[in-house]
């Protein structure tokens, strides 16, 4: 196992190197640089002189070819330095660090919610399999799964932001109200919580539908097994058969799925944060891409890829932990 882990980690670092190299090459070939894009926004009297431009270019290594730029970036990274954001004039690690908790607030809440809700839903639909109420619930969940998040998000905004405008039930996009700084601590918490409702709903419904279907399809396979029939024949009650005998065996795929949600947990959702103007990782990503803020894009890419790799590794390791039949040599 240790051998396997070491091999995976070593390969993982190689993969990361290739990914960051490819992404760096790509973004440096996008037209425009952070400086020229900045220039376009400035008014004429603010225009920087060409000598000043040269100095800035040298400062950010934009005058060097892209592969040299990558080399410099990777060298800094080796010393634990992600560089400085060109736009925000702050270290990239701090720029990202500010955003992570905000995104976690959404994705973490939604992950907990969808796990908590999908368990009873999945078990319920297994227990009532084939009945009318189960068909209705399952069909609804299936259709929900096909609703794109941005459509759902926009519809929710139309209703809660526009149609309910003026009533106490109105929900706004964004993370804070305009008078946030004047509120008491409790008021601030409640304010953020209120702003979280719509994004969390959007974040949750898709995975809820997916997870509960996942549980149901796994359960249906287990319920057909002989040992379930034996348990029933022994006179074990239906609830105990379902929870104690059947459900425990479906945990294996469920647990491994936790690992695969890791990148989405911290990476957030670009689309959802864009719809609800949520100042998290997703919006940072879009912003950095459109402003050509190379160090930020690279920092985000590195983090996202590392999390994806880590999540896959975690899934594989968890797989071996919960299923003793699997071992990695």
């Amino acid at each position, binding site marked *: 196992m240790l051998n396997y882990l070491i091999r995976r980690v070593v390969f993982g670092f190689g993969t990361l190197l290739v*990914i960051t190299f490819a*992404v760096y090459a790509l973004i440096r070939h*996008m037209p425009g640089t952070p400086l020229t894009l900045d220039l376009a926004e400035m008014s004429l009297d603010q225009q920087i002189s060409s000598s000043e431009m040269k100095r800035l270019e040298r400062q950010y290594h934009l005058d060097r070819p892209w592969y040299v730029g990558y080399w410099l970036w990777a060298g800094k990274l080796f010393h634990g330095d992600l560089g400085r954001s060109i736009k925000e004039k702050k270290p990239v690690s701090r720029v990202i660090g500010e955003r992570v908790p905000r995104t976690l607030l959404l994705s973490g809440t939604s992950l907990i919610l969808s796990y908590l809700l999908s368990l009873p839903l999945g078990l319920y639909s297994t227990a009532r399999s084939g009945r009318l109420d189960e068909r209705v619930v399952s069909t609804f969940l299936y*259709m929900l799964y096909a609703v*794109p998040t*941005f459509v759902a998000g*926009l519809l929710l905004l*139309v209703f809660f932001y526009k149609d309910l405008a003026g009533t106490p039930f109105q929900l706004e996009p964004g993370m804070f109200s305009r008078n946030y700084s004047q509120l008491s601590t409790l008021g601030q918490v409640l304010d953020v919580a209120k702003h979280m409702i719509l994004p969390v709903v959007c974040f949750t419904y898709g995975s809820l539908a997916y997870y509960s279907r996942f549980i149901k399809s796994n359960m249906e396979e287990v319920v057909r097994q002989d040992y379930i029939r034996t348990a029933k024949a022994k006179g074990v009650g239906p609830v105990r058969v379902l929870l104690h005998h059947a459900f425990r065996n479906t945990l294996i795929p469920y647990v491994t799925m936790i690992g695969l949600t890791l990148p989405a947990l911290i990476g957030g959702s670009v689309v959802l944060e864009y719809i609800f103007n949520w100042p998290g990782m997703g919006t940072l*990503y879009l912003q950095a891409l459109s402003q050509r803020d190379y160090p930020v894009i690279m920092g985000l*890419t590195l983090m996202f890829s590392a999390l994806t790799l880590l999540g896959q590794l975690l899934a594989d390791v968890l797989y071996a932990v919960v299923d003793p039949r699997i071992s990695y040599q």
Partner: protein
Amino acid sequence: MPESPPHHEATSPVPVTQSPGFWAEVWSRFRKQKLAMTALVFVGLLAILGIFSPAIVGTKPIICHYKGGLYFPAMGYFRESWENPVFITDGVIYNYPQKLKEKDPQSWAVWPLIYQDPLRRVRAGEMDGSAGNPIGMAGQPSRHNLFGTNDLGEDVFAKMVHGTRIALLIGFVSTGIAAVIGIAIGAIAGFFGGWIDWLLSRIIEVMMCIPTLVLILALISIIEKPTIWHLMVVIGAFGWTGIARLTRAEFLKLRQLEYVAAARALGFRWSRLMFRHILPNALAPVIVPITFGIAAAILLETTLGFLGIGAPDKTSWGRLLNEGKENLQMWWLIVFPGVAIFLTVLAYNLIGEGIQQATDPTLKASKH
């Protein structure tokens, strides 16, 4: 003397009924699923809607007789260059009904069912003294504009009908590209194994980790004049990893079977083994993720359109939603394209599920 039993001719053929092939059986099982069939019919209808979109909604005549020649200006919706340049030089293209009569009183034309344009606002008096399209909040769905109009007064219904072309093309072309690349790479990795498999698996891993958005955004912005076709190629060129992994797994499994060993012993070349012997048997499990891939590609294109990146096409469903985000009061910019995307994605998911059910060998056994 007892009559001898009727003599059978030795050469008479014994009636042999050929058992249906794998795909015939899959089709017959697929056909029995009502939902999946409904979804298939829905996609078929969408395809018809897409192909005939210029004849359904448009401001260009389907056929017209102009200055002694027959023309098909509506073809210009498919490709600008398919509209005869005569109409551009004569300045007809932005007001066919009036200008045609003006320039050539003898001319006649067959018009689309609904006179609206996906790319521009219809102005007052173009067709039989009709009113111009309302703009912005006034553009609610009405008799003239079935799904309302957008901020510029362009007809939403026309945009959506013409947008079906993009949605379907994106689905088929990009998933087709992804399928070809994925099956080829997966087949090579699984068939040859060894260091080839190792290398290709690492490449797949790298591809899966690169954030899709960076890739697409970077590639699209590098292209000087990106079109919807570029987007299809980009989506396809990076959406093959799942298919490749599945194909690889199938090949790894199949190449150890006895019939493959037998074929190998007969001395067939590797290409014959790969394409004739293994590939047909590996296709069934791969076709399900391909169907889901079509839904995913459509979703990705609309997402990009919604974010305002990538698709430069004015008729993309995602673009309408993008306009809807800026004008939340104009609910018709959100509801109609939203429902269209939802139904299309749902249809492909149902078809995929139907194929999954139809190709599942365990379900076949349980039928008896």
